[in-house]
């Protein structure tokens, strides 16, 4: 009868219980949030351009805002939405919010984004902006790209707004007919980049900026490099840079330390995991080749 070989220390580390990894990454996220480190930020050119695009909007213009994210993404993109609205509130511009991504996006906007905006009282008053006069939310429109195309050519294609008000009762919407009545399109969301550019930006020559999720960054970057987007924010990292530029530290700057620590933790895990893997492979090769240690 052969005796069962006891696993070595390396085997035990390699096959560590997943709960241990979960515990380590939980600590890596929570500790920097409780005790911020305050690491310096390197400001990317694209974040500066995002801020400048909003700064450059002429007074009295209309801005089309597609702050379109589901609840799952609001942790990553919510701060970008909040910071963008904060900057817009400081300017004498009128805002129209639209949603095409998913049916719950307007709810995320009302429940997760607006309450964190400076000067938010309720959905009737957003800072110094009055609902219906200075800002309007059209709510979710089913139909994705077809609906975008339709709305771009006729902003009155929807008859009621997100809160059930008739479009004819909203003074702001009386001056807005098509997408060409806007000076800037702001797209904060994970996805929909090509449809937005195809249906709004290109046909109506609408200047467009975008805050995107980390996984979509490369997809957005190609348009920025081509000059289609005037500025972009890369996930929480870009939003932290934007908050810094605005001089309004918010949720993203707080989260930046956690992002740093979790990145380092993952890098360490990758290095240890691979070191063990390579070492075990080398030992196995030596044994196969007849060389004993």
């Amino acid at each position: 009868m052969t005796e069962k070989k006891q696993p070595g220390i390396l085997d035990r580390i390699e096959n560590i219980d997943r709960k241990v990894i979960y515990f380590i990454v939980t600590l890596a996220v929570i500790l920097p949030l409780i005790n911020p480190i305050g690491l310096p930020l390197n400001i990317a050119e694209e974040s500066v351009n995002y801020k400048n695009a909003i700064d450059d909007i002429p007074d009295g213009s209309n801005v089309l805002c597609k702050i379109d994210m589901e609840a799952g993404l609001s942790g990553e993109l919510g701060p970008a939405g909040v910071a963008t609205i904060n900057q817009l509130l400081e300017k004498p511009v009128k805002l129209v919010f639209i949603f095409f991504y998913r049916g719950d996006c307007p709810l995320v906007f009302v429940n997760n984004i607006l309450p964190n905006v400076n000067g938010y009282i309720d959905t009737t008053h957003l800072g110094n902006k009055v609902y219906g006069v200075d800002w309007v939310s059209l709510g979710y429109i089913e139909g994705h790209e077809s609906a975008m195309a339709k709305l771009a050519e006729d902003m009155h294609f929807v008859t009621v707004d997100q809160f059930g008000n008739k479009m004819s009762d909203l003074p702001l919407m009386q001056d807005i007919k098509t997408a060409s009545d806007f000076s800037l399109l702001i797209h904060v969301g994970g996805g929909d980049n090509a449809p937005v550019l195809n249906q709004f930006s290109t046909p109506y020559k609408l200047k467009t900026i975008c805050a995107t999720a980390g996984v979509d960054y490369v997809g957005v970057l190609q348009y920025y490099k081509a000059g289609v987007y005037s500025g972009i924010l890369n996930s929480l990292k870009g939003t932290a840079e934007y908050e810094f530029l605005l001089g309004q530290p918010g949720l993203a700057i707080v989260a930046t330390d956690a992002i740093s620590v979790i990145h380092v933790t993952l890098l360490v895990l990758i290095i240890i995991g691979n070191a063990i893997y390579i070492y075990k492979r080398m030992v196995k090769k030596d044994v196969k080749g007849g060389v004993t240690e």
Partner: protein
Amino acid sequence: MSQMIRKYLPLGLLTTIIAIVTIQYYLSIQVLKDLSSTILNWAVIMATIAVGLGIINLLTRYMRNISRRRENWIFNLWTIIVIIMITATGLLYPFGTNSTFNWLLTNLYLPGDSSIYAMVFFDICFAFWRAFKVRNTDAALLLIAAFFVMLYNAPLTQNLFPQIAPLGKWLFDNPATAANRGIGLVIAIGTLAYSFRILMQRETGAVGIRESTGEE
């Protein structure tokens, strides 16, 4: 006659719609613009109807699962209860903004959606530990690229390794962007080719008919 109705009528309709919507995008012809606008209206209405059809389809399947006590039927039952609950409260006055409807979505749906998304993070971290290994040359290349991108993405490592971290930016700006453009172009050309085949009535799959047999 049957062939005409089943194959050529839908294909002809499809061809006409594609032609109208595409041409009006590039040429400013008022008649085509008006037609395209009406077609877009139809598309939006049909998309909305499709959501309703999807729900009916789901309910039919789940009801069957429940009546036959198939595996996990209890979750099917729960789904039906939630659909009914949300639909019923959504239809209460004021339509779509009723406080009960908002409460359900705000306090059940939104936190649930966020939690599911957040839970994925833990599995991704564990996958980094278990699966991200240098098993072959492809995996090694992926790992090296990921390593530099991670160094670039975190402010801490950007400051700790100012000479190495820009490599991540270079990877984003050049190989990743170039590859993405390539993929984008391939998709665009593929879409054009597919649309052209529909226009030429060569793509019967678009109307649900198999080319070889002519069967639906």
